[in-house]
């Protein structure tokens, strides 16, 4: 197993006697799912970990105990240990794999104090997210195929977004239809934020509000499958858009296209933000190129790594690398129009950005 070989090699390079890849069972769109990536299994319970020795022995601890059978079936790790007492099982695994010295911890940001305290009694611990991140940085052909599959699911989600953005539909009904369309197309989870109204402030969860003529409906359409996310940011206006809305959306399109034109392997990732901010600043919106008027100009997606980062801004240090999955979104609050959504996900290539979804990025107009 290449992942295991790579982990053992990197543990050796980092002078680690073992590695623990931990998950509290949550999934965060802006954070890698290290355990899911490493074990090939989406953990369910509150505490789960792969424990790896410097000799390449590995045990997968799964809570609750009854979820061990699923883990055994789905993970490549043969030694699966179901438990309802994670702290005890973790200590037992460390001792049975004869792990000594300093142990690396990936996913430590999710680890509660009481688990860490128990772990610290067994071994010295040091953060080691970078080990899994480094392994995951190069996507396998299977991962790339998954990325493309999820991109087509996002298109299905957008079609539902467009179809159901009509007068009388409640916000939560719109989200329900998007979720349904994406699950039917193969998503196993979804991240959908939206807002509606004549002047939106930010994206949020849906309320019971009914869509009305003149509404601007914005959405982050983000299906997930096996931990891989793809995002489309779209705006639909119900009824004839005002000239100022058309003009400002064109500005965002211009900024987005210019940024995408800069996306290429080995370019600094900060170029996305500096390009978008540059165009918006030239148009007189420099003071809006910061929170609370926007969050970020894009971010990476991936199961084991979200490089080049969860926030792409002008200060982002990392370069873009081949086969990274990056969303470029000049989502922006503008005083004349409110918050607008505009963005696409790309695969970074040596010659440029490969667009992953097929639906067009533009201001969509639905009949009132």
């Amino acid at each position, binding site marked *: 197993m290449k992942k295991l070989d790579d982990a053992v090699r990197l543990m050796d390079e980092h002078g680690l006697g073992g590695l623990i890849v931990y998950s509290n069972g949550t999934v*965060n769109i802006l954070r890698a799912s290290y355990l899911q990536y490493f074990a090939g299994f989406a953990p369910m319970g509150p505490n789960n970990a792969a424990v790896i020795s410097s000799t390449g022995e590995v045990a997968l601890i799964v809570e609750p105990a009854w979820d061990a*059978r699923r883990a055994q079936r789905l993970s490549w790790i043969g030694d699966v240990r179901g438990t309802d007492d994670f702290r005890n099982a973790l200590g037992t695994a460390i001792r049975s794999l004869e792990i000594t010295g300093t142990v690396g911890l990936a996913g430590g940001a999710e680890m509660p104090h009481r688990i860490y305290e128990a772990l610290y009694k067994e071994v010295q611990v040091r953060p080691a997210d970078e080990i899994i991140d480094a392994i995951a940085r190069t996507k396998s052909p299977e991962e790339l195929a998954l990325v493309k599959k999820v991109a087509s699911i996002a298109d299905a989600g957008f079609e539902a977004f467009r179809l159901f953005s009509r007068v009388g539909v409640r916000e939560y*009904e719109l989200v329900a239809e998007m*979720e349904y369309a994406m699950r039917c197309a193969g998503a196993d989870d979804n991240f959908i934020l939206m807002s509606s109204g004549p002047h939106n402030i*930010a994206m949020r969860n849906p309320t019971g509000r009914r869509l009305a003529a003149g509404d601007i409906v914005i959405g982050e359409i983000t299906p997930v499958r096996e931990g891989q996310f793809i995002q489309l940011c779209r705006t639909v206006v119900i009824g004839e858009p005002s000239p100022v809305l058309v003009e400002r959306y064109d500005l965002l399109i211009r900024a987005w296209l210019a940024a995408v034109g800069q996306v290429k392997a080995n370019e600094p990732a900060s170029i996305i933000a500096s390009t978008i901010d540059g165009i918006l600043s030239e148009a007189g919106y420099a003071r809006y190129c910061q929170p609370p008027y926007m969050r970020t100009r894009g971010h990476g997606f991936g199961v084991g790594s979200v490089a080049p980062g969860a926030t792409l801004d002008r200060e982002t240090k990392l370069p873009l690398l081949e086969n990274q999955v990056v969303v470029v979104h000049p989502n922006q609050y503008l005083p004349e129009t409110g918050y607008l959504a505009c963005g696409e996900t790309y695969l970074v290539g040596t010659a440029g950005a490969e667009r992953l979804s097929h639906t067009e990025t533009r201001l969509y107009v639905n009949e009132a």
Partner: protein
Amino acid sequence: MQTLQPTLRLGRDVWDSVDMPAEEFRARVDKLRAEMARSAIDALLLYGNGLDECGYPTYISNYSTKLPFAALVILPREGELVLMFQGSTRGQSAAQATTWIEDSRPCWDIAETCVAALTERGLLSSTLGLAGVRRLMPYDQWQKLSAAFVDGERVDAEPLVDKVRAVKSDREVARVRHASRIICGALDGLEGTGSIAGDESMVATRLMHDARIQGAEDVRVLIARPAEPGWAFRPPEDSPLRESETVIIHMAASWERYWSEAVRTYTVEPGNFQALWEKTQERQFQTVIAKLQPGRSIGEFAESARREMGTANAAVIDEYGLGHGIGVTAKEWPVISLSNVSPHDQVVVERGMCFSIRLALPDPYRGFTIRGETIVANDLV
């Protein structure tokens, strides 16, 4: 029952301040303050994170985490409450629309914000009751928070808060009932002609859609297929269903913060599911849940459940347990164990307690049938 957490709680998110007014939350504050006075606690720190473990702050604030982020409420014995939640300032107006607490603070560092708020209120060196903090807070956050506690005392307040949370008001019960209606409607829909096509995932997709359209904010589905070797409940997969096969569905959903759960056993028929719930089973089920009456103990219920299920059927659900409390989280105190000696056996049922329970009853055709319901005291929701 433990389910796979989604990335985002993406359903309807509203606070109906007419049906669930601020007075309701003030009454909860009063109850907790009375308990705090008895235990000489100056302030409670009510912490939670993620989509499964945010019950403490949600109970008192109505604010609910939608992402794997954290929230914390400082409830002082005197003075106003403070709500802090991980999120950007852009999200404050949406968050404020769902809580009655006026002092709400979006932040990224909960520990730092908590220390600042405690310092402002002069509470840093007082006796603090911790609920969820030690058990759930990530270690780096806990280290930062505990480093600020130089004087004063920290006590475990989870038992105190759990007991207050366990007894629901009429408004809370109404929400649990509403969530139950959403679930039952969706599960009943599986029995309609032509309702089932495709694989396990499509069954879950249909259930989720039905629940979302009814306003569910979070929906979870597990499936079990007893024909599989070593079967267990698990998230649905892209696996086709076989005619005449037995399929067990666990569904949980929340509505305006309150959860309900149900389990149904079906036989797969062409185009739909058949529940095949026998009168004898209904009688047995009612016999057992009748024990969840105010004044009786959890142990009495467990004993009755063991008797009606029999040893062999009890073994089927042993690893999942008989049930637990349910409310602003899908799993709450008390836990109802199948074992003969459980720490919660002595808990006496009170009016307004809500339980998610599951039984494996004898079945002449399938060997056993698992049925789960959400119960208010002895009243089937």
